[in-house]
């Protein structure tokens, strides 16, 4: 039981990082980025290739995948998102969904549908704490995830962070106060893309890398976002824990549990949307 709880907690770190990128874009720009999962997938491939071709350790490739994804993010923002910022939500959904299809299939064309994985010297190592065995790779991803979240909390207190929040509350008022809205959006989108890239690196450490991996992770992030409420870091963390732990429990104790666990996030989304559309944090959504 303890082991199962520990596994759930450890995976929730990764879920939180994926979701934080999604909430950043949704909170500041009001856009649901259906392509966020594909950012994670690209980050995972950057790490995979850096490791396979040049032997760069996944942890060291963190800045690399963050950097590559910032470039990808800025170009997507410039050519795709910016023209439709003030368009209908309808068109925004279609556009980001289109980008997600493009990235997914580009990955399929380039790297085929193979499942790839990285094996580092430490991927099979584990630490025993009492009755629990904790994989070193999982512990690493969790640690990095916690650090990132703390960084983000600090960032929100800085001048740039405050500017982003101002823009998210009222775009026009913020512009009148002398905040460059376009720049704020670029920053928000780059941070989100970087978070996606980092999440990719982390997931390459502990799971298979394949072109459609982003879809599943992206949907889990939606579940967490909806459960945790929008733009609320603590809500996101708690919701990640809930999802991680419940997946782990279902996966361990139900017959054929890992299959059912895949559907858990979706069931969660549907339940929350139907019964309590404001999420656990209770933030009201228009």
């Amino acid at each position, binding site marked *: 039981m303890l082991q199962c709880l520990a596994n759930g907690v450890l995976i929730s770190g990764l879920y939180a990082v994926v979701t934080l990128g999604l909430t950043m874009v949704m909170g500041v720009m009001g856009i*649901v980025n*259906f392509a966020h999962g594909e950012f994670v997938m690209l980050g995972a491939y950057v790490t995979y290739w850096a490791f396979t071709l040049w032997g760069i350790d996944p942890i060291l490739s963190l800045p690399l995948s963050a950097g590559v994804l910032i470039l990808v993010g800025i170009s997507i923002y410039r050519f*795709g998102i910016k*023209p*439709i910022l003030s*368009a*209908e*939500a*309808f*068109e925004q*959904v*279609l*556009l980001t*969904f*289109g*980008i*997600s*299809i*493009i*990235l*997914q*299939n*580009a*990955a*399929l*064309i380039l790297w*085929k*549908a193979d499942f790839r994985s990285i094996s580092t010297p430490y991927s099979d190592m584990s630490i025993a704490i009492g009755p629990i065995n904790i994989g070193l790779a999982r512990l690493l991803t969790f640690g990095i995830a916690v650090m990132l979240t703390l960084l983000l909390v600090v960032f929100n207190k800085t001048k740039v962070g405050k500017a982003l929040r101002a823009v998210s509350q009222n775009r026009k008022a913020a512009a009148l106060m002398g905040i460059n809205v376009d720049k704020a959006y670029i920053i928000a989108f780059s941070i989100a893309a970087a978070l996606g890239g980092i999440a990719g690196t982390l997931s390459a450490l502990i799971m298979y890398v394949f072109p459609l991996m982003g*879809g599943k992770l992206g*949907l889990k992030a*939606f*579940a967490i976002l*909806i459960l945790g409420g929008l733009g609320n870091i603590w809500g996101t963390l708690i919701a990640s824990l809930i999802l991680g732990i419940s997946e782990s429990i279902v996966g361990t104790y139900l017959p*054929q549990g890992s*299959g*059912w666990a*895949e*559907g858990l*996030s*979706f*069931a969660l*989304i*549907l339940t929350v*949307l*139907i019964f309590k*559309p404001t999420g656990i944090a209770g933030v009201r*959504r*228009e």
Partner: protein
Amino acid sequence: MWGAFGITALVYPWIVGSSYAVHMGIVILMYAILSMGFDILARTGQVSVGQAALFGLGAYCAVLTFEKFGIDPVLAIFLGGLFAGVVAAGFGFATLRIRGIYFSIATICFAESLQVLALMARGLTGGAIGVSVPPIFDGNITASYYFILALLGGTILVSLIIDKSKLNFAFTAIRENEKVASVMGINPTKYKVLSFVLSAFFTGCVGGFYAFYITYIIPYEVFGIGISVACLVMPVFGGLYTIEGPLLGAVVLKTVEEFLRTTIPYGHMIVYGVILVVSVLYMPAGIVGLVKKRFLERE
């Protein structure tokens, strides 16, 4: 133009002769219905990213009613459509109250959770192996062609009725501004659910037909994202909120896809993504919109 289209569609199997061409015709007609189904819902401003949920529900319901109760395939197909419609009504009442984006997320989750359900409930659905059924009309593909053509006729008729009746005003008002619409005495949830149910019925019927035409279904296929994507890209590309647009989108894109499938086996779906992005950015009214603009400029 409508007359020419109708006559071509009616005599098509006699002109082409080869059964492959008739098969392509059937596939195109199927997608034409799916794409019109998406459009009926889109008229109220809702984007469903999970039409595969309705398609798969129709497919499984049709196949299972045939297998367990021995119901005639043609009737089973309509039962599949009805079942999808009933489920859509429940799902719609629960999720269409909230803002559009959340409905989109909910639909994609709906399709994914049904896929998991179909994979796991092995006793009923056969799990990943799926279910097989004998072919409809004893494998007579000309009969299949006319059946699906008639179903398309029904869809066009419903779409026309919506277009010409006062429903059109209600749908458009909700799409343009939901708050204003509700102030004017329109109950947005009611109309959104109505359009979703209509959309679900036709999508479910096509799912049922697909099952009996292809003769086997697996969860990855009928609840798969590929179907949801096609349902969405075709009408956007052709031109939303029109009758010609979704039809045109299905004819053009399915033909292109068939060509690409043979040249690029993996990832030919990338074209759908590119077309979607280009359509949203540069031709929001689709091909139909471009053509109309050209005509107006000439005059």
